């Protein structure tokens, strides 16, 4: 256990930033889901890291909850993507812009 807590937190920050980058730039709906997963994972990493260093089990418990919730969310998200694909034959989110103004 030589690594300081801060190292893990920094990795998590990097992952968070990459996730936000992905969601803000990529046009493909699935890639945007990737970005969301990264954000959630960065948070989980944080939780577990803190949980280790405090030490306290709540962080790990929450991480488990969060993983499960992420799964549920992704399921709904993918379902929406599929519906969109059926309609447009396309999953390019940047093209979904009929609602604006």
């Amino acid at each position: 256990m030589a690594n300081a807590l801060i190292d893990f937190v920094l990795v998590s920050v990097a992952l968070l930033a990459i996730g936000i980058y992905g969601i803000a730039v990529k046009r493909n709906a699935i890639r945007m889901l990737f970005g969301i997963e990264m954000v959630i994972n960065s948070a989980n990493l944080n939780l577990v890291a803190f949980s280790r260093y405090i030490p306290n089990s709540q962080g790990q418990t929450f991480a488990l909850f969060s993983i499960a919730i992420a799964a549920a969310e992704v399921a709904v998200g993918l379902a929406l993507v599929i519906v969109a694909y059926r309609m447009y034959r396309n999953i390019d989110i940047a093209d979904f812009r009929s609602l604006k103004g």
Partner: protein
Amino acid sequence: MVDAVFLALSVLTIGSAIAALEIRSLIYGSIALMLALSGVAGFFLLLDAPFVAMFQLSVYVGSIAVLILFTVMLVRRELIFNKVEDKRRRYAGIALMIVIMLGIGTIIIGSGLKTMDTNSAEVDYKKIGEDFLTYYSPALIVMALILASSIIGAMTLARREDVIDGQRAD
């Protein structure tokens, strides 16, 4: 030794995360995502949380990534590969990414977190189960409702009613 593992894991996680977003092929991208998520699981192991790591691997790598792969397979490829991001948006995104990294990084590095270290024993994973059943027990009920609603919702959405109606749209 541990430093080397940490470093390797970091490189793996961050590198494959970037790859997941940037590789042109969505299938390779999905695989890269799996790698990145596995990397996170590796971190969990490193943090003495094997239970969470297993969960991560089974839920994420095992089910979510597979789900994504299925979806990728489902949609037609030619449309997926041809899209190229707008240059300006991309640079702006990279700038945002760097600003977030530097900004939050500065806050973290500047904070008292860097002094935080521990020699105490790792958390017993039985404690987690105890938490679930005592303190977080209402949350567990609600969790069940979430999963139920997500399944009901996702199924309803994904089901093709036109098939039932006997009229194929395409």
